């Protein structure tokens, strides 16, 4: 009972402070701040908050409530319900993982809330389940893999491919093969969260492949790359940017040097917004930003740009303002496709040693103005 009263008082207090300022926007950020995937969520949160800070007065009316989903779908759903019902947020954002996004997004947008994705881009939400209130500011899950498929088809003959056995993993290999073709040297699905890859490495060694494509985000990629480097197998590794982003590179160490991967952004991308982002991020948090931070930074800037044009209470106008994507993206150019997913360039990057710090440099453009493969299945009303 006491708890209930305390909660009601807190809710009241929040409500009162909300009324005090005119037309504020309340954003609910659900992201992963604990557990093995916390590095990604923390980067996303920090990138998002940095954009609001950099926006200064333009973001003065924006309030953000952040909660940790612990990378658990059931928890994310509870938090989303709470944010919608008691916190009365206007916009939800922040989810890193596709399985969590699938659990939260459809019901949130059905309740008339906006959802802006900073990372997860599962294929159903780009296709059959697309919604006018769902905007993906990151990518559709397949995109980075498609870019590597394209790169591999130009540079290699027999690629061995490997991903964990879950929706984003199957999306990854499907995306890769969409541009590479089906003639791979071998195909392995590993367990999600697997930490020892000795058995897989033995098979790769025996396969006679000339290249290896892996999609192993977070700790899985770190473990694999270290073991692979030690195994004496010298088949070159390629992969999507997630396996070699700034959050995991220090832990992989030298084993990552020279690895080609794909990304929609890297810190040497030559534009003003990107330079400012990298500089202020380093000054604020004393580390290099990852792709997750970059995408969240763009998401926050998109919201700020839309808020300058329309009130969030006027859903129609606000939606149109979001769709214009009239903000300075760190990716240089950025626009929305018919299914509210990005049209953007995807680059091939290479891991380099920059004065003792491992980071990615762009070496080629895999796709210009790339759209996802699911847009035609989207019947947006």
């Amino acid at each position, binding site marked *: 009972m006491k708890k209930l009263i305390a909660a009601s008082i807190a809710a009241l207090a929040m409500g009162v402070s909300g009324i005090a300022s005119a037309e504020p926007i309340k954003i609910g950020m659900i992201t992963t701040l604990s557990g093995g995937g916390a590095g990604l969520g923390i980067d996303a949160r920090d990138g998002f908050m940095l954009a609001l800070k950099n926006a200064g007065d333009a973001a003065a009316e924006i309030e953000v409530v952040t909660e940790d989903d612990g990378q658990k779908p059931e928890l994310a759903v509870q938090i989303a319900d709470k944010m919608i019902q008691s916190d009365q947020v206007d916009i939800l954002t922040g989810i890193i993982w596709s399985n969590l996004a699938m659990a939260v997004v459809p019901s949130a947008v059905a309740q008339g809330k906006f959802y802006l994705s900073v990372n997860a881009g599962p294929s159903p939400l780009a296709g059959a389940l697309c919604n006018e209130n769902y905007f993906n500011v990151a990518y559709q899950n397949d995109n980075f893999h498609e870019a590597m498929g394209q790169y591999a088809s130009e540079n290699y003959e027999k690629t061995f491919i490997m991903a964990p056995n879950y929706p984003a993993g199957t999306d990854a290999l499907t995306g890769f093969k969409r541009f590479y073709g089906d003639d791979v040297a071998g195909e*392995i699905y590993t367990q999600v969260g697997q930490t020892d890859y000795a058995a897989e490495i*033995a098979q790769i060694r025996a396969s006679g492949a000339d290249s290896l494509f892996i999609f192993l985000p977070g700790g899985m990629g770190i473990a694999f790359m270290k073991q692979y480097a030690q195994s004496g197998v010298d088949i070159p590794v390629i992969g999507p940017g997630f396996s070699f982003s700034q959050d995991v590179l220090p832990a992989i160490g030298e084993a990552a040097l020279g690895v080609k991967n794909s990304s929609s952004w890297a810190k040497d991308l030559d534009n003003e917004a990107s330079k400012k982002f990298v500089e202020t991020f380093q000054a604020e948090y004393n580390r290099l930003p990852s792709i997750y931070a970059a995408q969240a930074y763009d998401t926050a800037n998109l919201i700020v740009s839309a808020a300058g044009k329309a009130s969030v209470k006027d859903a129609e106008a606000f939606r149109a303002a979001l769709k214009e994507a009239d903000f300075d993206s760190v990716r240089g150019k950025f626009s929305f496709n018919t299914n509210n997913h990005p049209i953007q360039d995807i680059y091939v990057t290479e891991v380099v040693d920059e004065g003792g710090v491992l980071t990615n440099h762009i070496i080629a453009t895999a796709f210009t103005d790339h759209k996802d493969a699911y847009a035609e299945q989207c019947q947006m009303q």
Partner: protein
Amino acid sequence: MQTALFIEQILNGLQLGVMLFLMAAGLTLIFGVMGLINLAHGSLYMVGAFACAAVAAATGSFWLGLAASLAAAAAAGAIMEILVIRRLYERDHLDQVLATFALILIFSEGTRWLFGSFPLYLDIPKLLQGTVPIPGGSRYQLYRLAIIGVGVAVAVGLFLLISKTRLGMRIRAGESDREMIGALGVDIRTLYTVVFALGAALAGLAGAMVGALQSVQVGMGEPVLILAFVVIVIGGIGSIKGALVGALLVGLVDTMGRFLLPQLFGMLMPPSQAGLVGGALASMLIYIVMAFVLAMRPQGLFPAAKG
């Protein structure tokens, strides 16, 4: 090539097995002597890995890190026993599970508070880098062979400790009849703390050795803990011999399943389908083995003798 691959996979299975043995030995020892289910054993594994990574980063020496991991895990284990676990021996298993689960959360958040959320870097020592030739024409990673060696040494050491020394005698006596050895004047509180610290040190050693292969991060202990529980259930709870056999069985079954099942299905269906189905079945395989063993011998393969 196929023979070489086969030998390599058997070595991989053995390596996973001895690593699980280090975890399971401590877990089963603690259960056997004190009747305690310690869910926080995985946290001690994590403590070992973080201590090794932190000390190795500060001093540049993996070996100092390894020593630090043993010391840190044993110390963490001893402190945990004295502050929390000691109050739980008389309680039922549900209370023990609740309290040690709370310890997992405390250790995880404490480690995150100290080291942050991003994984730490820990490399294999120079001496053990590289590969060695194995029969069949392939090469095998030296460090993994070293892990197998350490595991075998620990198994022999534990066997000698328990069967030949006074401490081992007390441990065996404690397993058979707790009240009686207390009545005979053995300081049972100290014995418990020592056994707990020993089990913790083994977990820390496993964490440090595996940390150099995998990633050192918060929450790394829990997946291993689940496997270690499978091992002691298969081997017979409380039995070191059971833990050894169970660990090797789980290590080999898991590795060979991941290797052979997709190939087996590959004869029946297209490769990408076979990968999915075989991979899914391989991840279930050790639990199927556990269910099978439990159905045949509910007390495990080598049940500990109970007084």
